[in-house]
C-alpha cells in the first residue's frame, strides 16, 4: 500500500480484498507519519494505543462479517483543540502542555464509531488564533508543498497531514477561515459546514458563536464522507441543529447544468495577478459544466474584518477566562494570593497572540464601550448576513477566492498583526453569516504554490456545495 495516496474508498477496497488488515494499515501509517513528521512538525502527539485499539475493532467487525463502517480503518488526524479522552490535548498552548482530557468530543466519538483510526493530534495556532500556525507554543508547522513556507492557520497541522499524506483525512476547526485558508495554502479540500451542523461539544471554545468543526481531505468525496459521519444533532451542544443530514454522496453525482453561480464583485475587484488568473480558470471549468455565471454584490464586505475582530475577541476574553491556574492548566510558581495566581499563571502561560486578543476583547467589552463596539459589530454582522441572504435569492451558490495570496514564508508577516488580520478578508464573511463554505484546489502559481477556490451556499446546503465541488473536481478543476 502507498500510504500518502490512500483514499477512504481505497482503504475500504484494500480491507475488503484482504490486501491488508486495519491493524497492519494503522501500524504502517503510524510508522510513515512518524518518519515524515520531522519535516513539517504537523503532529504534536501520536496516539498509537488508541489507533491500534480502533483498528482491532475494525478487523473484528470484518471477521464477524459486518461492515467496517464508513471510515473503517481510515487513518485520521485531529486538530489539537478537539478533546480526546486519555490523549494529550494542548490547544497549541504551553498552558495545556500536560492536559489529558477526561472525555471525547462528539465528533471524535462519531468518527471512531464509524471505524476511523486516529493516528494523533495535529499542531495549530494557540487556541486556534492565527493565520499561519506560527502562534503554536510547540513551534510552527512547515508547509509540505514548500517547507520554507507556512501551511496557513489556524488548522495548519490538520491541512499539512492531509497534504503530506500522513493522514487520509483530518478534523480542523474554523472560526474566521481556519480550515479554508490552510486548505488553500496546502492544496487540499477544507470544509467549514453550516454553524451548528457539527456539534461543538469537546471543541475547546475560542469564539462560541463562530466556532465550527470541519473536515480536510484530498478529495471532495472523502471530505463529504467525513462530514456525513460527524454531522447532526447532539444533545451536548444546544446550538447543534436538528436539521436532517442529507446523503452527500448521492447529491454529488448530479450534474451542474443550469445552476446559477454568483461572483461577488467586492472579492474580485482587488484581486490581481496569479490568484485572479487561477480563479478565472476555475470559473471556466464551472462554465463548461453548464453553470451560468452572474456578477453579484455583497456590499458590506469591507466591514467584515472590523466586526469580526470585535465579536471574536469579545468571546475570546470570556471563553479564555477559564484558564485560571486552578482546574486544567499549569499554575505559576509566583502565586501567593488568589489574584496573583490568576494574573501570573495567565501572563506566563498565554502566548502573544492569545494575550493580544484577550486584551482587545476585554477592552471592547469594558464599561462605556459595549455599545460602541460589541453591539455595533453585532448589528454589522446582521448586515453582512443579510447581504448573503439577498445574494442567494438570485443565485444558487457563490464562488470566491480564499486568500489574497498563496502560502507566504515563515516569519514574513509576524511583525504586523493588523496585516495578518486583514488577510482573512475573503473567509471571515462566510463565518460571520454561519453559511457552509469550502476551499477546493484551483491549480498552482508559476512557482508551484497551491491556490484555493471557495464555494459558498445557503445554510444547510452542504449537499449543493459538495455537488459543485465534486463535479468541478472530476472535470479537472483541481489542476485548472
Amino acid at each position, binding site marked *: 500500500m502507498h500510504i500518502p495516496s490512500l483514499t477512504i474508498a481505497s482503504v475500504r477496497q484494500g480491507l475488503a480484498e484482504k490486501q491488508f488488515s486495519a491493524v497492519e494499515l494503522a501500524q504502517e501509517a503510524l510508522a510513515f507519519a512518524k518518519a515524515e513528521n520531522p519535516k513539517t512538525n504537523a503532529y504534536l502527539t501520536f496516539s498509537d494505543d488508541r489507533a491500534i485499539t480502533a483498528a482491532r475493532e475494525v478487523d473484528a467487525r470484518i471477521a464477524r462479517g459486518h461492515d467496517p463502517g464508513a471510515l473503517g480503518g481510515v487513518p485520521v488526524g485531529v486538530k489539537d483543540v478537539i478533546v480526546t479522552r486519555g490523549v494529550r490535548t494542548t490547544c497549541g498552548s504551553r498552558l495545556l502542555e500536560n492536559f*489529558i482530557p477526561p472525555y471525547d468530543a462528539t465528533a471524535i466519538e462519531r468518527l471512531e464509531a464509524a471505524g476511523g483510526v486516529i493516528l494523533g493530534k495535529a499542531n495549530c495556532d494557540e487556541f486556534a488564533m492565527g493565520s499561519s500556525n506560527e502562534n503554536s507554543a510547540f513551534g510552527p508547522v512547515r508547509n509540505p508543498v514548500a517547507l520554507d513556507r507556512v501551511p496557513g492557520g489556524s488548522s495548519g497541522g490538520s491541512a499539512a497531514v492531509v497534504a503530506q499524506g500522513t493522514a487520509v483525512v483530518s478534523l480542523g476547526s474554523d472560526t474566521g477561515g481556519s480550515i479554508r485558508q490552510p486548505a488553500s495554502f496546502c492544496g487540499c479540500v477544507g470544509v467549514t459546514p453550516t454553524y451548528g451542523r457539527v456539534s461543538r461539544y469537546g471543541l475547546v471554545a475560542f469564539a462560541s458563536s463562530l466556532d465550527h468543526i470541519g473536515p480536510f481531505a484530498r478529495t471532495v468525496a472523502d471530505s463529504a464522507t467525513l462530514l456525513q459521519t460527524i454531522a447532526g444533532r447532539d444533545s451536548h451542544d444546544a446550538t447543534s*441543529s436538528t436539521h436532517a443530514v442529507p446523503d452527500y454522496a448521492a447529491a454529488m453525482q448530479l450534474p451542474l447544468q443550469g445552476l446559477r453561480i454568483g461572483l461577488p464583485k467586492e472579492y474580485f475587484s482587488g484581486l490581481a495577478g496569479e490568484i485572479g488568473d487561477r480563479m478565472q480558470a476555475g470559473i471556466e471549468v464551472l462554465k463548461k459544466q453548464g453553470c451560468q455565471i452572474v456578477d453579484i454584490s455583497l456590499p458590506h464586505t469591507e466591514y467584515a474584518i472590523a466586526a469580526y*475582530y470585535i465579536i471574536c475577541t469579545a468571546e475570546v476574553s470570556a471563553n479564555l477566562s477559564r484558564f*485560571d491556574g486552578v482546574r486544567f492548566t499549569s499554575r505559576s510558581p509566583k502565586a501567593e494570593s488568589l489574584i496573583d495566581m490568576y494574573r501570573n499563571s495567565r501572563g506566563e502561560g498565554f502566548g502573544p497572540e492569545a494575550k493580544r486578543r484577550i486584551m482587545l476583547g476585554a*477592552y471592547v467589552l469594558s464599561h462605556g464601550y459595549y455599545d460602541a463596539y460589541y453591539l455595533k459589530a453585532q*448589528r454589522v454582522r446582521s448586515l453582512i448576513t443579510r447581504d448573503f441572504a439577498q445574494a442567494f435569492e438570485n443565485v444558487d451558490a457563490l464562488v470566491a477566492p480564499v486568500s489574497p495570496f498563496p502560502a507566504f514564508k515563515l516569519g514574513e508577516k509576524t511583525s504586523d498583526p493588523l496585516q495578518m488580520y486583514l488577510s482573512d478578508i475573503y473567509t471571515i464573511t462566510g463565518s460571520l453569516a454561519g453559511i457552509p463554505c469550502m476551499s477546493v484546489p484551483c491549480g498552482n502559481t508559476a512557482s508551484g504554490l497551491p491556490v484555493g477556490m471557495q464555494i459558498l451556499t445557503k445554510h444547510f446546503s452542504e449537499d449543493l456545495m459538495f455537488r459543485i465541488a465534486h463535479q468541478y473536481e472530476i472535470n479537472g478543476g483541481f489542476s485548472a
Partner: protein
Amino acid sequence: MKLTEEQVRYVAGLANLALTEDEIHTYAHDLSDILTHIDKLNELNTDGVPPMAQVLFSAEDTATLREDEPHACLSNADAVANAPVTSQGYFKVPRVIER
C-alpha cells in the same frame, strides 16, 4: 483610536493578565492600530438593524430541550486529574478568606 499605556494596564487588570513593560508597550501600539481599523464601522448607519448574537435557524421552541434523565458524570478523580494542586478531591487555591 489611540490607546495609552495607562489604558493597557487597566485592561490587563480587567483580564487578569500580568504583562511585562515590553508587552504593555507593544500592545498599546498593536491595539491602537486595530482599533483605528475598527473605527471604520462608524461609517455605517446601523439604526434599526437588530444585533446578531447567534446564527439562529427557525426551530421548535423546545428543539434544544432533552428529557430530564440522570446520566453518568465525571468521577471526582477524573474531574480533578488535570489540576495543578489538589487536596482530598478538591481544587486547592491560595488562601482567599483570612480567619
